[in-house]
């Protein structure tokens, strides 16, 4: 019975994807990205149980941390994901996140700007594909009923949970994740290392102006090479008993 219902959902989603190709809308989604530093740090494999608990004890509660806002602007044929320009001024600027993730759905290619270990890369190539497992679980995110999907991050080998809605028919989402039968409104890395949750969704029949980079600066690369570099640094840091995320964007 359960198998049947999942199959049924899959068929519906497939119909949705077909429908999406012919009819779409533009819009902007604002996400809030929260990086739960203590959770990430306490999972380092080289720590003793006591050291893990000590990190959670000292740093576990960060109620005042508001996170950072990101936007996903999309049209029928493309989407751009980047940090939202800051409106507020608290008298200190840390510098902006430089990553811009550009997806062209017509050519199915990327033209991303990615920062890695102090260097900028321009990544052109096919949109990365993810092996999603769609589950029969639902929840509400920013007023939309979303469905759960899971995959494994190929660099860190950590589980990723996405909540997507078939009501917004864009094959995109935050942090370059996409390929689901609808836009991803919530994304969780490794349970709760990072939570990215949509807070505001603006849809319109008029396509928004996509915030594409004004100029592309950086070394040309592809995701295979980029991810290999990332994985190398991750593995070396863990082996050297140092948290790799001091240097790496998760």
């Amino acid at each position, binding site marked *: 019975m359960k198998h049947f219902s999942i199959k049924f959902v899959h068929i519906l989603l497939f119909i949705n994807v077909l429908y999406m190709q012919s009819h779409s809308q533009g819009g902007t989604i604002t996400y809030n990205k929260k990086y739960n530093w203590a*959770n990430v740090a306490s999972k380092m494999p*080289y*720590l*003793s*149980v*006591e*050291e893990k*608990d*000590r990190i*959670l*004890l*000292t*740093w*576990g*509660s960060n*109620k005042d941390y508001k996170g950072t806002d990101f936007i996903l602007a999309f049209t029928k044929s493309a989407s751009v994901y980047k940090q939202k320009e*800051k*409106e*507020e*001024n*608290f*008298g*200190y*600027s*840390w*510098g*902006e996140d430089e990553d811009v993730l550009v997806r062209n759905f017509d050519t199915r290619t990327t033209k991303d700007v990615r*920062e890695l*270990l*102090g*260097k900028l890369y321009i990544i052109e190539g096919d949109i990365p594909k993810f092996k999603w497992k769609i589950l029969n*679980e*639902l*929840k*509400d995110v920013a007023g939309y*009923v979303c*469905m759960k999907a899971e995959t494994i991050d190929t660099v860190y080998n950590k589980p990723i949970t996405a909540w997507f809605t*078939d009501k917004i028919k864009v094959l995109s989402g935050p942090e370059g994740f996409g390929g689901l039968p609808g836009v991803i409104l919530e994304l969780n890395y490794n*349970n*709760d290392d990072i939570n990215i949750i949509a807070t505001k969704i603006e849809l319109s029949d008029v396509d928004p102006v996509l915030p594409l980079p004004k100029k592309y600066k950086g070394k040309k690369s592809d995701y295979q090479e980029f991810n290999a*570099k990332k994985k190398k*640094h991750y593995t*070396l840091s863990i*082996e*050297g*008993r*140092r*948290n790799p995320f*001091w*240097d790496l964007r998760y």
Partner: protein
Amino acid sequence: MLTGKSTASEEKTMNVELKEEFKKGGFGKVTVGGGSMSRGDLKGNYNKFDSKNQISFVGIANNTGRNGLSWDDYQDFMGSKSWDDNSNYDYGFGGGFMRYFGSSSSSNLESKVSDAFFSGNNGGFPTNIIGGVNYNYDHKKQKFSGRYFFQNTGNEKEVFTDTRTFLTDFTQDNNKYNKDNKGSINHRTETKYQYDIDSLLTVIATLDAAIVNADNTSEGTSTLRRDEILRTSSSTYKNTSDLSGRLLNTSLLFRKKFRKAGRAIGINASYLKTDIYDDQKRFSDNYFYNIAGTPDSIKIIRQYNNDTLDKYVIKANAMFSEPLSKKLFLKVFYNFSSRNENGVRIVNDESLNGFERVRNDLLSRIYENKIVNQRSGSSLTFSSNGQNFTVGGAYQQVNLNGKYESPNPLLVYDPVNNKFSRWLPYFEYNGSLSRNTWLNFDYEKSANEPSIENLLPVVDFSNPQYITEGNPDLIPTLNHQAGIWFNHSWPADAIRINGNARYTYYEDQIITSQIVDENLITRSKPINYDGGTQFWTSAGFSFPIKRNKLKMRTNISRSVGKSFAFVNNALNKTNTERWSPSVNIDITPSEKTAIYVSSNISFTTTEYDINTSQNQTIINQNYNVDFNTNFGKGWFWNSSLRYSIFKNERFGIEQNIPIINLSLYKQFLKGNKGEIRLALYDALNKNIQINQSTSVSRVFDSRTLSLARYVMLSFSYNIKGMKTSVAKTEHW
């Protein structure tokens, strides 16, 4: 079909509960050890926490001076309050909160619980009994943290000191033996309550209280010689102090934020009250010799001092911040503080027959001090894309009022009424020049009020050959400080470099003015003087030779200082230059073995303008090797060698001190919860603390006898299991 909002919210609740569950934890450890030389060690800590509550206990009893409290113990005890904003709400130019560790005042009455975790080993034969409990609560609108801490510490210490002071035509040499016996019992509580009235308005109240009792006995002998040969005076002394003090410190703070992000108002007020009672004895027999070397006079001091000091400090601060645009940020602040001290020091001399006490009206004092400090200032910050520039200025006004008199109304002294006002500019740049490069530059002018010890016109005879006296005419010191630091990293190659420089120029610096009489007895008094400087630079470089197997860190620093003192009304200028290079090599060939090799050396050259033949270089060298290995099956080995060399060619001093510590331990029980350790400390029985330094017109060399070789067998139980790795974790 895809409906059911209820399902969705249930899911949400479940997620939240899972997270709460994840934040639960608790860990604890107990160690019991006994050793030769009547050494014992008992230590336990335990904590338990969930998303709302954290409770922790710590207890220690030892006489080793080694297994005190560590950084980890501090975090385990304080929990989420480890990095709580300092209870110091003096608003100023700086953006964030700074957390300072380390003790501040001399009687340690005003120190915090946290200071107990960061006190170093000062040699001697220390004993420690410590107990504490901490509770933190954090839920919805309310936060509470409260702790109680008990400390019973003691130290028996014998110190041999040689001091040489350069005078215009000759030197004064002092050989001293001192035996200290210190003991203190402190009780301390700290509480803080925070309530968020709504999402924009917060109120915080704090209350700290402490009781301190300290007993000190200091006895010894001291001989003064002219040009190393001719004995001019000798003294045997015994000084005691029985001090008790109480502290109460409370504060209230309001913080209002507005819908417009960045706009904020902060107002706070605090009241600190201390009272100290100190019952002192100053006993000494002083012999003065003629050129032939025979005593020609004797001075017997038998003083009984009763000191009472009441102090209260009222502080009030206000701050308003407003973002003027996306990139400009304005801050306005005002600080008020009023420090009020009232004291009575009654000095009684023992009468000649030894049965009566006679008040010494020349040395007894009744005094009042009031220092009112006000500062108002403003700063403007430009911040954009990782670049932050702040310019600011403040106007500070200090009023010093003092009144002091003898219990005998016939002896009259002038009251002190001084008023100072100053403009204090401020500039800071902080930002990233490129990815992985950070640069900071700052310039600040600040003023420090003189301490009560320096202000009081009280004569202290505790060392009859070096008599000190306060100076009520002292004015605040102005510090001009400029600094720069930068760091850059190549994360892919694990290479890091950094550089620092800091320059300080002192105006009205507090220096000493000394009068040395024909018997070489020194009377010292603090005075203000312009022109002292300090310049410190350092550079560091860290890189792997073989990634994750062999790593090297090097650092070199240089500090140059110019300082002054008046000796017999002649100005002495002293220049000091110190170079200190260091190298660390971490060798981690496998998971089972870690070797840490390090060396640090310092070359201190001191030049005296009054007597250039006394110019000298002190060289201190330290070489360390730590070797940790895991033999397998729960067996571990840990050894450390520390070889120190102290050298001063001018005085023909060369001392080599090798310290070797060895321990073998076995972890057992399920999850490595138990550990038995056999340790041999200071295998060669060579431990002694050496201190060498130079100051204005003076060279100083001391040796402190300290706990040396002993063996200890200990058992530890850790409820979460012992750490099995032998390598250090990199925190940054």
